[in-house]
């Protein structure tokens, strides 16, 4: 099934308020889904016989932000965080990329990380991928069974793949920068 057909199918199923965008000319065509609908959409994509996306290839996050205020005017993206899901169907042999876009912070003043519902109940591997995404990119996956850091130590501060991340000055007596 092509990305256009899939987009049509999802739009009729969930309505335009949940399927918020798409790009069919990209190298990997993608469909954007509202954060609150991602679990329903994921369940549909996995179980519907027309889609059958049984394999979650990858789940990762991208932080779109330009920390340098001088360059920020030229930056060609609105500041936001994307969670990207790459899916494959073993039976129907098609692929799709699903994106969820959320603001960089749930609360700008307290620097609370944004929330995206967890898809662990649909693909078991999302458990570890979401932990990694939380650890490095800083996305809070709600309803995740065990949202702890996976690559960095548990007492690490900040999320290293955020564009405005600063390496800590020291960590347990080890100089950082």
């Amino acid at each position, binding site marked *: 099934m092509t990305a256009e057909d899939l987009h049509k199918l999802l739009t009729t199923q969930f309505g335009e308020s949940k399927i918020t965008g798409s790009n069919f000319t990209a*190298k990997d065509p993608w469909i954007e889904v509202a954060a609150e609908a991602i679990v329903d959409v994921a369940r549909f994509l996995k179980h519907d016989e027309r889609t059958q996306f049984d394999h979650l290839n990858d789940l990762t996050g991208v932080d779109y932000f330009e920390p340098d205020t001088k360059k920020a005017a030229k930056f060609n993206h609105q500041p936001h965080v994307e969670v990207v899901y790459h899916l494959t169907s073993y039976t129907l042999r098609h692929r799709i990329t699903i994106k969820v876009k959320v603001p960089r912070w749930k609360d700008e003043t307290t620097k609370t990380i944004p929330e995206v519902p967890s898809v662990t109940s649909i693909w078991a591997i999302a458990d570890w991928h979401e932990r990694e995404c939380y650890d490095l990119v800083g996305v809070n996956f709600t309803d995740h069974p065990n949202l702890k850091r*996976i*690559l960095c*130590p548990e007492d690490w501060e900040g999320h290293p793949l955020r564009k405005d991340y600063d390496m800590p000055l020291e960590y347990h007596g080890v100089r950082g920068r």
Partner: protein
Amino acid sequence: MSLTLEDPRVIEFDVRTDEMLVNMGPQHPSTHGVLRLLLRTDGEIIHEITPHIGYLHRCAEKIGENLSPPQWVPYTDRMDYLAAMNMNLGMALAVEKLIGMDVPEKAMTVRVLVAELGRIASHLVGMGAYGLDLGTFSPFLYAFREREIILDLFEELCGARLTYSYFTIGGATHDLPEIIPIPPGLAALTKRNKNMKLTWLEAVEMFLNWLEPRIKEYHTLLTRNQIFIKRTAGLGILTKELAISHGCTGPVLRGSGVDWDLRRDGEPIYTRNYAGYDFDVISAPFEDAPREAVLGDNWCRFFVRMMEVVQAIKLVRQAMAKYPKSQGTHRVPYKMSTKLPVDEAYLETECPRGAMGFYIVGNDKAEPYRARAKSSCFCNLSVTAPLCEGFLLADIPAIVGSLDVVMGEIDR
């Protein structure tokens, strides 16, 4: 007061056991690097197992955001350091997909030839180290004897023995060398004069001729060995559903009976490298499996790797025949300052340990805006918990070893 067996304080007759937390690793020899397994045991029985990873985390993705793609290639070497060639290839192809670059036929032939040699070397280590996990030492020595020759050949090719950085954006850094001195190991094994000179392809041919009959010996040593079968067959059974849900790829997935190999089923930019080659995708169940073997157990995963070596030899031979007729050069120049388009590309390639994915986001700069490496071992390792629960402590190395994980790739 007489105690009955139902009493919770009594587990087996009059031996009382307590639950214990045991740390296996991060320096345990059978954990293949710095993997820490936290076990909750009841005597010999494992009740719960929690893998802790991240001891080898080197921020490869963060570094990738500050480097131009050709500069990031050496960092991919250090992910799966046992199959660095295949890592380089995956990363180069992902960038080529992003910028829409075509490589000449000759570069593709070189890529198949060398990547499949890398697969043989990697599976040899996988085989030897698995034997070591189960307590047999000799297969390890035989495997390293063979691998040594491949490393010597790679050294003639690019100067490095482990971290090659051989494939780069647009092809390979060098063409295949012409005349080389015979690798000392090969001279000794084939009883040739050690001062002999020959072409690189002749040396590969000589090595394959020597390796091919040895595979039968490995089967005698390990695959068909009764002790080995007792330790592996029927243990660590990974069902097809569990394997798919946990995103397992490569020999782990094929050992569970899913017929999926990216060399055949992947994206066109990758599969076109393998167009015109004749090879089989190896997946369980096997007709000649021992009686005790069950679909998706340790033995099946191991056997998939062994059979893939045979297929890789076949592929190398075909690539060697194709190489002299291949058109074009080994490399299309790629400028370090080439700006990556405002787009993104995700590409998975079939590495020896599974599907390694690279996700490159460009933003009109030479450096990728986001460089992500999706590790196959990361997903394969995540099935440890469901696989090991309820088994004996002594089976943990057999089960984790059969997943054949490399920590450098998991932690990146």
